[in-house]
């Protein structure tokens, strides 16, 4: 199957060697566009599929031209994720997250 990954953190996605990558500067939670913005969402999907069709070299990336107008802190989760709350009370564990050295010997590092 032929695949393409859309990403708003293309630097990270590219680092894991995906075959095709379309970068988009949209916030988490509304990566395809705002609720109800049918034209905008369709334009994003169309651009991603066009990029897939045109990419001939493994590891290709296309930075999509869509501009996001809105605050960077738009649309936060209603409550902080569990890990954020945990690290607030256990800040000495933060280096484990950075190194992906998970508690209990779970796989993290490559």
């Amino acid at each position, binding site marked *: *199957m032929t695949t393409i990954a859309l990403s708003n*953190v*293309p630097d990270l996605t590219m680092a894991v060697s995906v075959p095709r990558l379309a970068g988009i500067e949209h916030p988490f*939670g509304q990566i*395809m566009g705002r609720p109800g913005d049918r034209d905008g969402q369709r334009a994003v999907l169309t651009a991603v599929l066009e990029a897939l069709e045109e990419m001939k070299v493994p590891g290709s990336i296309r930075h999509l031209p869509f501009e996001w107008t809105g605050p960077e802190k738009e649309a936060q989760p209603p409550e902080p994720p569990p890990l954020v709350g945990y690290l607030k009370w256990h800040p000495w564990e933060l280096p484990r997250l950075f*190194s992906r050295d998970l508690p209990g010997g*779970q796989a993290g590092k490559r």
Partner: protein
Amino acid sequence: MAKIVDSYRFLDGITKRLIRSWINLETPREIPWTPLANPLSDCTVALISTGGIALKTDRPFDQEGERRNPWWGDPSYRIIPKTAKSEDIHVYHMHIDPRLGEQDLNCLLPIERLEELAELRKVGRAAQSHYSFMGYLLDPREFLEKSIPAIIGHLRADAVDVVVLVPA
């Protein structure tokens, strides 16, 4: 001037440092590559979202498990039929605002937009089913060993040619 996406625009200070740290942990590897064999207008296209989306009639993703162990993420996946509407689903990902995807599923899994492109003959057809899993997976082993082969099986059974991976 051509746009270059800012990978760090929507991240706070610590998360920016975290992402840079994770990038430095990665090593170059062989890139898996399947060329596009036919024009998109002849292809069956499926979507996969990391939004932790499930039908309300399906088993929820395990949020309590993540609350009990914040280092853990649910490694399972769900099938989202092509006919699903926003009112049929729930978004379980706890690191995004789920209300946006629940208000409009297409923010995270553009099912209806894909159907429109099929009607316009931009793609051959939308797959019968699409898929979702939790994007928060610090330990991906069980997901890679169990969920990925199962999803691939479904995609092959549905004769899918093209898969678009949509992050949350």
